[in-house]
C-alpha cells in the first residue's frame, strides 16, 4: 500500500465555468477530479466509483442539489458532500446540514479557499464524515 492513491473528488455543477475552474485548480493540487453537469450524472458517476469528496451545487436543472444530496447519502452513507451554492437561504442551509453535508460554501468563493478546505479535509482529517462530525460553514467576510 505504498502507492498513495490519488484522492478522488466529484464536482457537480451545471455551470461549465465553475466546474472547469474548480476541476483545474484541484487537479493542479494533485487530486483526481471528476465532473458532473447535473444531479443524475453525479449519482451515476458516484455509483461507478467512490469519491472522497463531492462539491455539489444546489440550483441545477432537473434533479436539484438537495435531492441529489439525499440520493448520494442514501446510496453512499459515508460520502462527504460539500454544498457549494449561490443561493443565500438559511432554509437551504438548514436542509443541507440535516442531510449531513459536511460543509456549506457560498459562491462566489476564492479558489484558494476551496483548495485550503479540501486540503484540510482530505489530508489531516481523514474520517470526519461520520455522523456528528464537525460542520464547517464558510462564512463570507
Amino acid at each position, binding site marked *: 500500500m505504498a502507492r498513495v492513491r490519488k484522492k478522488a473528488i466529484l464536482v457537480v455543477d451545471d455551470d461549465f465555468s465553475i466546474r472547469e*475552474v*474548480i476541476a483545474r485548480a484541484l487537479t493542479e493540487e494533485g487530486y483526481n477530479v471528476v465532473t458532473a453537469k447535473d444531479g443524475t450524472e453525479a449519482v451515476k458517476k458516484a455509483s461507478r466509483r467512490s469519491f472522497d469528496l463531492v462539491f455539489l451545487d444546489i440550483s441545477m436543472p432537473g434533479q436539484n442539489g438537495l435531492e441529489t444530496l439525499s440520493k448520494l447519502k442514501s446510496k453512499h452513507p459515508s460520502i462527504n458532500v460539500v454544498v457549494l451554492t*449561490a443561493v443565500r437561504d438559511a432554509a437551504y442551509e438548514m436542509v443541507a446540514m440535516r442531510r449531513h453535508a459536511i460543509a456549506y460554501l457560498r459562491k462566489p468563493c476564492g479558489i484558494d479557499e476551496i483548495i485550503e478546505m479540501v486540503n484540510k479535509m482530505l489530508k489531516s482529517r481523514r474520517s470526519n464524515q461520520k455522523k456528528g462530525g464537525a460542520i464547517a460553514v464558510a462564512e463570507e467576510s
Partner: protein
Amino acid sequence: MDWQYNQYSLLSLVAGVISITLVVYIWQRRSTPGALAFLALMMTVAVWSMGSFMELGSTGLSTKIFWARFQYLGVSPLPVAWLGFALLYTGRKKWLTRRKIIAVSILPLITLVLVWTNDHHHLFWQDIRLDSIGPFPMMVSDHGIWFWVNLVYSYLLISFGIFCMIQAYFRASSPYRTQASVLLVGAIAPLAASLLSLSDIEPFAFMDTTPFGFTVSGLALAWGLFLLRLLDVVPVARDSVINNMPDAMFVLNTLNRVVDMNPAAEKILGQPASEVLGQPASQVIEENLGLFDDAENIVYGRSEIVVTSENTQVPYELNVAAVFEENGRQAGRLVMLRDITDRKRADTAINHRIEFEKTISTISSRLVGIADINEAIDDSLKSIGIFSGARQSHLFFLNEEGTHVDNTHEWCADGVLPNISELQNLNVISMMYWIKLLREGQVVTIFDVSEMPDGTQNEKQFLEQQGITSFLAVPLFVEQKLEGFIGLENIDNPKGWTAADLLLLRTCSDVMGNAFERNRAENRIRDANRELQTALEQLKSSQAQLMQSDKLAAIGQLVSGVAHELNNPLMAISGTVELMQVYVNDDLAKEDLQNLHSNTMRATSIVSNLLSFARKSEPEKKYISINETIESVIRLRSYELNLDDIELVEYLDDTLPNTMADFQQLQQVFLNFIINAEQAIKEAHGKGKIFIQTRLTGDYVRIDFIDDGPGIPHEVKARIFEPFFTTKDVGKGTGLGLSICYGIIQEHNGQISVESAVGKGTTFSIELPVTGKSTVTYHEKLENSNFDDQLDRILNVQGGDEWHE
C-alpha cells in the same frame, strides 16, 4: 148757508184742489228728501186756497169773516214753510235749525192769534163790511197795523226764498237746464201772483191770487222733485256737495284764473274765496301750495304733493282735469286736492310692516348662511337698529360661569360713539335684576330710564353712566341656556318701543340662538372631521409604509434571483483569474490579472450587499442598550470624523431602558446614517456638525441623527427610502443603504422618518418600541418540531424521509 157761485171762487177751488192733491201726492212720497217742508208748504197753500174759496163763495158777512180767519191758518205759516222749503231745495239745509225755525215762526203765530181775536182789538182789520158793489158780495176791510206788519214780514220771507231759488237757477250748469227751469217757475209764480194781487188790475183787485201762484209753483216743484229727482241731483245740491265735501276744489278758466272754489279750498289756502276768485292760479295756488311749478299746461293729471303749513305737513292727492263745454271747447280746468293723510298713514303702516318683514328675512337669511357669524351678527344688529330707529343695538354674552358679561357686538347710528371697549367683563351684579328676568325668558323693557323703579338701582346707574335714556333687551338662548342678550338703546330721548321692535328683537335672538347652535354643531363636526382627517392621514402613511414594504419584498425577490445568477459567473471569473495568476509570468499580464481580480471582488461585494438587502432574515434580537450600540458605532467612526473635521456631539439619555433588538443590524443602521451625514457634510462645506440624541417618548426609544449638511430636496426626500434610489455617482453607492435601514427598522416594528430643509440640514429619526426581555429567539424557533414539515412544504422536497430523526 147761502152760497154764491163766481169764477173767482172757482179759481181758488182749482188751486185748493190741486194743492190738496199735491198734499196727498207728497204724503205718499214723504221719504223723499225735502218732502216734509214741501208738504207743509202745500198744506198751507191748500188751507189758504180752500179758505179763500169758501170766503168768496159764501154770502153772509159773518161766514165770510170766519173763512177769512180760517185762511190765516194757511196764510201766516206759509212764508215760513216756503222759506224752509226754498232753503232745503237750494242746499241750505244746515240753516234750518230748530231755534231758527221757532224764531221765524213767532211773528206768524202772533198774527194768527190777532186774526182770531180781532173783534177785541181790531189790530188786524179795523172795519169789516160787506161790499156789494162788485159783481158779487165781497168782504172788504180797512187794514189794521198788524196786517201791514204781517204783510211786510211775509213778503220778506217769501222774497228771500224766491231769491234763493233764482240764485240756484243761475248757478245751475247746463246739464241741469230743465231742473233749473222748474226752479225758475217755482220761484216766479208766487212772485207774479203776489204782484198781481197787489195791483189794481181787474179782476185781481177783488181777490188774492197769491195762493194760486203757490199752487203753480207747487205743481212745478212737485214735477221737479218727484219726476226729475230734482233734490237728488239738483245743481244746488251739487253745490251743497261741493261746498261740503272735504276735498278742496278750484275751478280755473282758460286763462288759468281761479273762477270758483269751495270752502275746503279756502281752508287750505287760508284765504276767503272773495280774495282769491279772479286771481291767476299761478299766483294764488302756486304761492300757497307750490302746485303749479310746471303745471300750467296740465290737462289731466294726478300726483301727490305735500303742503307744509306752520308745523304740519299734509299730504294731498292732486287731480287736475279739463272741463269742457258742450261744443267740446275747453272751458277751463278743475283742480282737486284730496287730503290723503289717512291713506298715507295706512301706507306708512304697511311699509313699516313690509320693512319689518324684510328686516326679519334679512336677519334670517344672513344668519342662516353663516360664513362668518360675527359679520352676520353685525349686519343683523344694524338691520334691527335701523328698523327700530334706535341709536344703538348690541349683543352681550355671559361668560361660562355666568358671573360677567361682555359686549361682543354693537351697532351705532351715525353720530353715536361706540363704547363696546368699555363694556367688557362687567360684573353681572350691575344688572342682576335683568339677568334674572332674562333667565326666565322675559324681556327688559325700559321706556324711560329716569322713571326706573327704586329696586333697580344698579341697572339704572349702569344705563345712566352710558347716557342711555331708554332700553330694550331680550334673552339669547343657545341650546336652552341663557348665553346673553341682545338689545336696543336710545340716548337722546326716551323712545316708546313698539310691539314690532320687540317682535323683531325676539325673532333676531331666536335666529341668532339657532345660528350659534348650528355654529357650535358645525365646529363639533369640524373637530370630528379633523380627527378623522388625522386618522386618515395616519392610515395613508401606514399604507404608504406598507406599500414601501411590499415594494421592498418584490424587489428583494428580484434582487436575490439576479444576485444568485451573478454569483456563478463571478466565481468563475475570480477562480479563473486566480488560476491564471499561478502560471502567468508576464508582469504586465499579472498586473492586469490583479486588476481583474480586484474588480471581481468589488462586483462580488456589490452582489453580496444586494443579497443582504434582499435577505429576509429576521433580526437576531437580544436585550441590548441602544446607547451602547450608538457609542460603538461612534467609536468605529471617530478616526474618520476627526480626519474630516466633523464634530460629533451626542446627547444620550441615561435613563433609556434596554430593549430587544439586533445589535449588529442596528449598528449597520446607525453607521449608515453617520456615514451618510459625513458624506453630505463633506461634499457641501468640508466641515460641520453631527448631533445624535436619544430619549424616551412614551413606549418608544427615539434616536435623532441631526446634521448641518446641505439638506435634502423635497423630491429626493420622497424617494429616499426606495431601493436603488441614489443621488451618488455611479459606482459610489448601490442606493440600498437607506432601504436596508428601513427594512431593519421595520423588522424591529419601528418607524423611520426624515425631516430636512435645503441649506440647513437633515434629521433622521428612528423610533423603536421598547420591548421586554424575550426568551424565544429565532434559532430556538428553528428547533421547533413542526419546522421540518414547514420546510418540506416550502422547498417542495420529495421523498425526504431519511432525514427525519
